[in-house]
């Protein structure tokens, strides 16, 4: 039979079985809503975590008494070191400027009183992977038997991970990424399971009907198509409703607060139109496939 026939059958199924259809719709709507809220949050969190990780740097302080040759040797060595993405030379003047900006309290007053720049020249080394920081430090200043780090080159005064809590940052952001990833997986899994579950139940409520269809000579696909189309319609409606609610929520709550999001804004956040498309496709696919698969159990007559 034609698509038109199956489509009409699907509409009949939906309108004559409004209770199960509504239940399925509600499930799709709710799970899509939850996912639609969490996807950007997870994205933002991961983005923020990544941004924080990117701030992980290795500062290599140049010894005051290093000769020009030694300095050149150091610069070349840094460039050659594995894991290094880029190296930036920060002369003491620039260092002071930055410090003043970040820490006006200490450097504003202190250095004025001091009348001289207390900071040394420095190389700022950006690792290509934040987790590679330890390796860089190890290479530039390997720890000796007592655990004390000794610079590998004469020009190096000291090698220091910025803020000394690189470990902590890496650990924390890593944890955040694992957590958000796990949560997302849990949510996606739960959503799919919940939708499949509702579909199963809604088809269970109509199993006698499916049996009768088989008994009067309908093939499996003849029975299945309307259910699949029903699934598509329910998924689409649920998805569209969820997207509408999300849009309303975005425009009434989030957009007016946009400035407050400055701190959280992360470049990796999925953009809204893409989110909508992903949600809709997911809803439709899960509903349609769920209907088709669930039906199998009741087609064995």
């Amino acid at each position, binding site marked *: *039979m034609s698509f038109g*026939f199956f489509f009409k059958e699907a509409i*009949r*199924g939906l309108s*004559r*079985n409004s209770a199960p259809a509504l239940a399925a719709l509600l499930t799709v709507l709710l799970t899509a809503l939850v996912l639609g809220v969490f996807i950007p949050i997870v994205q933002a969190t991961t983005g923020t975590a990544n941004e924080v990780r990117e701030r992980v740097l290795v500062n290599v302080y140049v010894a005051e008494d290093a000769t020009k040759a030694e300095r050149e040797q150091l610069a070349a060595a840094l460039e050659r070191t594995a894991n290094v993405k880029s190296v930036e030379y920060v002369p003491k003047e620039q260092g002071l400027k930055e410090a003043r900006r970040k820490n006006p309290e200490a450097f504003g007053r202190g250095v004025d009183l001091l009348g001289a720049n207390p900071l040394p020249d420095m190389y700022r080394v950006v690792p290509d992977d934040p987790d590679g920081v330890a390796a860089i430090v190890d290479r530039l200043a390997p720890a000796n038997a007592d655990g004390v780090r000794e610079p590998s080159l004469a020009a190096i005064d000291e090698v220091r991970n910025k803020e000394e809590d690189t470990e902590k940052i890496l650990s924390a952001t890593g944890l955040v990424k694992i957590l958000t990833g796990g949560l997302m997986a849990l949510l996606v899994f739960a959503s799919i399971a919940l939708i499949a579950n509702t579909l199963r139940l809604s088809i269970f409520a109509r199993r*006698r*009907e499916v049996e*009768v*269809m*088989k*008994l*009067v*000579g*309908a*093939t*499996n696909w*003849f029975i299945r198509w309307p259910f699949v189309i029903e699934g598509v319609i329910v998924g689409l409606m649920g998805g569209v409703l969820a997207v509408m609610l999300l849009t309303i929520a975005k425009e009434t709550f989030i957009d007016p607060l946009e400035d407050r999001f400055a701190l959280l804004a992360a470049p990796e956040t999925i953009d809204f139109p893409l989110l909508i498309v992903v949600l809709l496709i997911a809803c439709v696919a899960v509903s349609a496939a769920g209907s088709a698969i669930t039906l199998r159990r009741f087609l*064995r*007559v």
Partner: protein
Amino acid sequence: MSKIRTRRRPGAAETVAPAPLPAGEVPVVELRDVSKVYAGGSVGLERVSMRIGRGEFVFLVGATGCGKSTCIRLLMKELEVSSGEILIAGKKLSEVDRKRVPYLRRNIGTVFQDYKLLPNRTVYDNVAYSLQVIGESREEIRRKVPDILRLVGLSTKLHNYPDELSGGEQQRVSIARAFVNHPPLLLADEPTGNLDPETSIGIMQLIYRINRTGTTVVVATHDKEMVDKMRRRVVELRDGRIVRDEQSGLYRPDESTTEFAIRLRGELGVGDEGNPN
């Protein structure tokens, strides 16, 4: 109060007379030593052998619970036999692939004892469904369905749903659905159980006419009057076994109402149309 005796009737005929069949013809239905034991251990059929030729009209009779419905459900492969072999038009049912079962069923019109209507379809759509299933064109459906519904007396209920019908009306929808695509084999399980005698006669006339167009018909029934009037082949089951298989039999073997039956057949307009019995 005394117990109602339904299963054992002492002194009933225990002889089995197999129906004659022209040599070389493939029977439409053949049961070879078929047994059906249900999961709980209760016996549906026990070593039943039977051959039904093309165009035959067979009554399946017997006390309630004797295995009539079991037999019909086995024939359409709704149930699987426990042992033995069923052949439909020479093809072994056990060898029919799951995927091919729908195509088998399209050649078997079935009136179910519990009607088995689709609750979410109107009378019209219920009947139309078994045509849609075989890919009948929309025009054909629009032509055939009202016709058959008029025949069973339901033209005023076309657009009602099954739960808006009386018991007898539902039964007639089931009958219409089984007939509508003129299957070569018609199985009717208690088709007149909820019909008044007059409507019953109408339905049996309809079945008889369908039979005369060449369709093989198996009717499981308790309708004594009907069986006695029609005088066709009667297969009697008791506790899952065939205890009687007579050409032009009566509902009860011991009753002698032959003249009455002949008169009734005249009334039905059956006797004068040259059937071979």
